């Protein structure tokens, strides 16, 4: 059932280009602009040892894409609520939470696809993944789980508001959260208060864990912190989704 709902979710995304564009085109363009325009940042004192700026930026672009995938998933769920499609699902003899899980399953697949896309882009443009295939696989797993985690937040907002415009309105917030992390710039080189915020931002832990196998050898600490951060965001997202779903079912809207 979750698989069937996940399949529908994926087909919906591919059939609705305005949901696909933020996941792939926009982050890729942003990556190209940042690497092309700020590549000499690697020469800054304190910048991590990397083969190139793209090596540093790749993980951030992947995580950006999964954040947007979560937002897109939330928009799609809100559209389902607006057009009454969720009523059709609620009237079926399935667990109501399976509807959320189905949506997240679809988001997870999209997360994996975007991870593959950015890996391909990275390799084509000269990224050298220090940990090789194992490192690439780790990145895919982490990004996929991140998509589920962020998707939970998007679903919670959709279930609570029932309006795609509300979920869509949070799109700029995605960038605020991203720039207040180490996704696009080393935390050590950020100014206060951005540096302090980045130090505690779960996104920083996820990005560092995804970046680690690209620019250096595996670090158990970074990996554990990254997965814990994903777990924390997932727990928050799924809990909020469950509460929002319960509220919606109780009030009928």
């Amino acid at each position, binding site marked *: 059932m979750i698989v069937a709902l996940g399949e529908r979710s994926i087909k919906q995304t591919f059939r609705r280009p305005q949901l696909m564009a933020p996941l792939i085109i926009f982050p890729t363009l942003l990556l190209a602009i940042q690497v092309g325009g700020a590549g000499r940042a690697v020469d800054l004192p304190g910048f991590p040892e990397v083969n190139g700026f793209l090596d540093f930026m790749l993980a951030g672009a992947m995580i950006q894409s999964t954040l947007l995938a979560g937002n897109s998933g939330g928009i799609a769920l809100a559209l389902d609520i607006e057009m009454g499609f969720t009523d*059709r699902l609620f*009237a*079926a003899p399935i667990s109501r939470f399976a509807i959320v899980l189905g949506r997240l399953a679809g988001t997870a697949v999209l997360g994996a696809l975007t991870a593959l896309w950015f890996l391909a882009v990275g390799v084509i443009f000269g990224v050298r993944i220090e940990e090789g295939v194992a490192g690439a696989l780790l990145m895919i797993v982490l990004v996929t789980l991140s998509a589920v985690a962020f998707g939970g937040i998007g679903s919670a907002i959709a279930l609570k508001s029932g309006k795609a415009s509300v979920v869509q309105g949070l799109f700029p917030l995605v960038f605020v959260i991203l720039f207040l992390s180490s996704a696009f710039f080393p935390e050590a080189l950020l100014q206060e208060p951005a540096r302090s915020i980045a130090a505690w931002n779960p996104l920083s832990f996820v990005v560092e864990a995804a970046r680690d196998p690209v620019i250096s050898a595996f670090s158990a600490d970074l990996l554990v912190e990254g997965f814990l951060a994903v777990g924390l965001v997932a727990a928050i997202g799924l809990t909020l989704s469950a509460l929002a779903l319960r509220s919606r079912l109780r009030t009928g809207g």
Partner: protein
Amino acid sequence: MPEIAIETRDLQRSFGDLVAVAGVDLEVSAGEIYAFLGPNGAGKTTTVRMLTTLLQPSGGTAQVAGHDVVRDAAAVRRSIGVALQEAALDPLMKGRELIQLQATLHGMLRPEGRRRAEDLLERVGLTQAADRQVGTYSGGMRRRLDLASALVHEPKVLFLDEPTTGLDPVSRKSIWEEVEKLNREGTTVFLTTQYLEEADNLADRVGIIDDGRIVVEGTPGSLKAEIGHPHLEVKVADGTADRATEVLKRFGKPMPAKDGAALVELETGAAGVAPVVRALDDAGLAVESLELVEPTLDDVFVAKTGYHLEGDEGSEGSDPQELAEPEPAP
């Protein structure tokens, strides 16, 4: 299935201070077509949503197919098919995909779901359009697809919320025929409508709801008979209406004149028309037009609520489930 397919006792639902359903008692027998007739905002959709477990009641109880809608909601959902107002269909899905998804949600394995989808698409005449996206379908096609998806698991009880609103007469007739066919096959049908003709033509029994309460219930025939008898409207040549009224008095209770026509209640119905015509002819009155008017469900509605169902503003009550308009998708 139990003999009573749907039963409610003092069913209530409020949204804050707004009382949408004020206490509904009804019983629908297995195999019956029951129509819930009322204007927008009367409480029809809210009642359906409670019976289909989409909304929890604020008070009272309801059982569908022998299961309580709150305590045994999952069992209710296994037993019912639902086609809601607005035919909530994903415009990006293909017709076949939708029915197959519905089949999966009802526990069918994919091969069985595919077979069932083919059967249902053929039944509702959508085989040719099955691989097109629903967004390309006409209103009638969407309604037929909605109905097909509600039937995928052969439900014992089918809920149809205003199934023909917005459809052209041909599409409406096609839906009616399908509903009648389903009923002949044993499905209990609970439908809501604001169309008198739909309730009159389809339903075994009608419940008229207004302001969240059932005001009267019965077969269409018994409801109309309760209101009164047919009346005859006779238009005669100018200046002779009073003489016509005197003649008509011999055949029944006279009624107030309307648009220059003399009216009389005719207890014998159509059988009494010929004697009246002969009497008018014997009196030398030239009849311009003559019409036997049967009581309608609207007459019943007016008698019970004080206003017409069709073409009137209707109740001041508001059913938020019926009045809420979804925002257009971005």
